[in-house]
């Protein structure tokens, strides 16, 4: 009995250390990515300009000043974010390819999970910054004001961004090993993301128009996030080590 207790305590202690180590690794890698991005601003600038272009082009396709523009604004908003996110996601692993950084990571004893989580968090921050910069622009261009409570838009934004970014980072790692990888990412990311995109758009439209409850769609997004984060975490090592 005592032996078992002792073992489990040791086990917990080791797990605690492992978790601390994991956090340290995630933080180190994340800080590195953020510093690189802060100095070059490659991802943020290209994303911002791309999203701006999408918004302007959409405003020619649909009448943005129409009274019912808030019925389509949710869709346009998320399509712009989706396309812009792909621009950033495609650059996620590019800098790890230079000088064989990724190969070095592969042979290092650091858990692949740390690398994946730091990349997801970095992308989440980039896309989140993009969204918070673009949202005011949308309000101006599409003359938006929300009928429903704004905090629900924030929750939908966080859940939706995570849904795009967690799968996007994973699939970007997968498309690294393909020819014409920049084209490959949206081709595999978009079909899998269809339910998430549907949920984001429906939740946003529901809040903006105040005509329906976004509860179901927000729950669905939450479930999608949990399920796919789990799948990504479980399968990332397989993809990283694929030979």
């Amino acid at each position: 009995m005592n032996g078992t207790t002792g073992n489990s305590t040791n086990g917990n202690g080791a797990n605690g250390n492992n978790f601390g180590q994991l956090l340290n690794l995630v933080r180190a890698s994340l800080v590195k990515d953020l510093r690189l991005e802060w100095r070059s601003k490659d991802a943020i600038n290209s994303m911002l300009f791309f999203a701006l272009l999408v918004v302007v082009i959409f405003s020619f396709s649909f009448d943005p000043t129409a009274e019912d523009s808030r019925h389509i604004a949710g869709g346009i908003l998320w399509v712009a974010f989706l396309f812009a996110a792909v621009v950033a996601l495609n650059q996620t692993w590019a800098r790890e390819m230079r000088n064989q950084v990724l190969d070095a990571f592969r042979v290092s004893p650091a858990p692949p999970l740390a690398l994946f989580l730091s990349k997801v968090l970095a992308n989440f921050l980039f896309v989140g910054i993009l969204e918070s910069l673009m949202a005011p622009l949308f309000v101006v261009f599409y003359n938006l004001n929300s009928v429903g409570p704004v905090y629900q838009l924030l929750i939908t934004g966080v859940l939706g961004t995570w849904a795009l970014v967690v799968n996007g980072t994973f699939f970007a790692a997968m498309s690294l090993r393909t020819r014409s990888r920049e084209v490959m990412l949206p081709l595999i990311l978009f079909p899998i993301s269809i339910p998430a995109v549907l949920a984001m758009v429906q939740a946003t439209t529901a809040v903006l128009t105040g005509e329906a409850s976004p509860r179901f769609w927000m729950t669905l997004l939450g479930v999608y996030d949990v399920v796919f984060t789990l799948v990504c975490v479980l399968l990332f090592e397989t993809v990283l080590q694929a030979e």
Partner: protein
Amino acid sequence: MKPKMAIFVGVAIPLLVNGTYQALVVAPTEQTMGDVQRIFYYHVPNAWSGAFLLFINLCASVWYLITRNAAADALAVAAAEVGVVFATIVLVTGPIWARPVWGIWWTWDARLTSTLVLWLIYVSYLILRRFAAGGQTPILAAVLAIFAFVDVPIVYLSIWFFRTQHPSPVFGGNGSLDPQMKTAFFMNLFSFTVYALLLLNLRYGLERKRQIFEESQAAALSL
């Protein structure tokens, strides 16, 4: 042709001929929809076979990830390709039926949209296989197959929440079916399953030959 394959073909073709005869001649004409309803004997068995093949793809992919056995990957690619063909037939025969009966070619209801999304996911699977580099292809494809499997229930749930127009299942529901229709349907279901397995087997054999050829070429080069 190997004798085993000859028997397979010898069984599948008469089954398909009989199935077509049952569907077009023996089964009575449906009261309200008329002859266009007969596409049902074709549409549903194809849908079942397609779903069955894509399920085989999932099993083969998981099997591959566990054992890294090249045969499992050959089965996965064969099942995905043939499955996409069957799913395409479903997506084509559905609108042919829907136009005269519903008055529209397509509607965004749960079953139609889920089938379409499933089809899109598996086409992206095949594209990934074409674009992936060399030895990593099977692993990446197997991983994507697992994503596809996880995605399908979420897709169905999300689109079901809209509204559904597709006729509810005839069996087990409150629908009643003429016994001759039932016979024709089950004969076709059986025939198309056998036919799907035949195609799967052929494509699997081809893929295995390709793998073995590539291995022997690599071995010859390394000498």
